[in-house]
């Protein structure tokens, strides 16, 4: 089985380890990702201005291109892309007149009809593959590892657009349980990390990340897992204020470890806070493997 894949800029520019680990994990589960031939930035942030349609051109062009390339479903890995694409899709599905204006402006061979489905990787794993199947591929259960799932906002909000209950999400918890790990939960899992304030108000991000990491530590977590490259950047680089920083991993990296995949595709050495030492101490990764 294959699925059309929309990567987004951040994945390509700064989250290579997320992409390679996803490819490896999905290949193990029998799913091939087919990257779209031509694609543009998703638009990054969904514009709430009702009269500024130019902000929606980018996401709608992505759909129009996939429609032209013959696709009907689109996989995204990045929470920001997922959110922007879903919200723009929702807008043009609800609002025929705005859809028409955008289509007129884009002037593609075919108008975008609103029929493409956007799926976040976590939805594919939960709803298509299923935890039972995932469990069958676990070679090294993550027994004794306590994981703090961090959702942030883009995956869950606004309600109805997110992939899980915005107040009490469970998809990462269930997935980590499937891998054999213990899970530490806390309300701060759904608090925003400060997002793009990293660009010119990084003190906001440092403060928020500090609180989140401290709470995770208090709850006995060994690592934080997440699915968003921007959250990852913030949590991985802004734990300077925390006494003992926790490694921050993409959930697919831990799936890869549990599946016993090659460490070089998992990119565990591409983090500011090194996760390898911990994984080695707990016996999930052998010393010679960690030398990649």
């Amino acid at each position: 089985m294959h699925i059309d894949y929309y990567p987004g800029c951040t994945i390509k520019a700064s989250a290579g380890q997320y992409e390679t680990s996803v490819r490896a994990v999905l290949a193990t589960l029998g799913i091939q990702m087919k990257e779209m031939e031509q694609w543009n930035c998703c638009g990054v942030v969904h514009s709430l201005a009702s009269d500024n349609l130019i902000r929606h051109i980018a996401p709608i062009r992505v759909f129009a291109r996939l429609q032209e390339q013959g696709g009907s479903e689109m996989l995204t890995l990045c929470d920001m892309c997922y959110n922007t694409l879903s919200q723009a899709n929702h807008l043009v599905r609800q609002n025929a007149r705005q859809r028409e204006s955008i289509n007129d402006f884009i002037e593609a061979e075919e108008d975008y009809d609103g029929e493409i489905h956007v799926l976040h990787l976590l939805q594919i794993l939960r709803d298509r593959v299923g935890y039972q199947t995932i469990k069958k591929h676990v070679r090294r259960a993550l027994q004794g590892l306590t994981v703090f799932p961090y959702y942030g906002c883009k995956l869950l909000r606004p309600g109805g657009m997110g992939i899980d209950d915005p107040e009490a999400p469970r998809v990462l918890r269930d997935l980590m349980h499937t891998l054999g790990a213990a899970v530490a939960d806390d309300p701060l899992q759904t608090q925003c990390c400060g997002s793009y304030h990293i660009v010119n108000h990084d003190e906001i991000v440092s403060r928020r990340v500090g609180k989140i990491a401290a709470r995770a530590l208090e709850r006995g977590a060994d690592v934080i897992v997440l699915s968003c490259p921007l959250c990852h950047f913030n949590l991985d680089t802004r734990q300077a204020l925390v006494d003992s920083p926790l490694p921050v991993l993409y959930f697919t990296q831990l799936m890869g470890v549990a599946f016993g995949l090659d460490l070089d595709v998992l990119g565990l050495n591409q983090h500011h806070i090194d996760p390898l030492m911990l994984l080695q101490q707990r016996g999930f990764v052998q010393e010679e493997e960690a030398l990649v």
Partner: protein
Amino acid sequence: MIDQPREINIQLMGKDYKVSSGLTIIAAIEYAGYKLVRGAGCRAGFCGACPTLYRRAGSHKLYTALACQTLAEDGMCLVQVPFVPVVRRPYDIEEVAPSANIILQYYPEVAACVSCNTCTRACPQGISVMDYIQTALRGDIEQTALLSFDCISCGICSSRCPADIKHYPVGQLARRIYSKYLLPRSSQLADRLDEMETEQCEVEVETMMHLSTEELRARYEQRSFETVAGRDQKHSAIQKWGTAVDPVDYRDEVEEVAY
């Protein structure tokens, strides 16, 4: 040619003129009596000095073209745009090693692109300008270099962009980084340069001076291509007919030699 009227009406900067039909825009402007001091250069579609902004009769749309490559049409209303003030940020090529955000460091404004595609529509070279801005945004230097290869720095795209991006220096920076750091080196070129140093190649040139057209043609057709270490595929601009890498189709020239 038979159906064409002998004269057409055009408007230059709002003033009406009758000019002979079948002229390029540059020639039509000169026919009307103007002397182009700026807004013209090579007259062969290479220098990018002759952007024209025009409207067609009966349409509200603004079109763009190179004046030396486009025929004047009846009812055109046009003006030359001899220069687009584009920002260029100096860099030392030794210090711009490829990394995912090197282009963004010099041209952060590319992040403002809204994917409207106006630049692509405006480009007289038929380049997917939006796509090279997008690949620059995500740090793909190779694609930015290849997609922008045919750019002649006319600046038209930048005069139309709603995000005020200045495009061609972005492509230029990518191509420079690409050729300095990423493009595979050819061992044949190094050998050839050695041969030139030792004047060995002069013997070959001397021999070629005495070959017939047929013999030269046979040599041309049997020429070998560059090989690149670590790649199975031979890497040569000439092999990629009709791609962005090869703006000139050498086959035409071969035919000409034959007749």
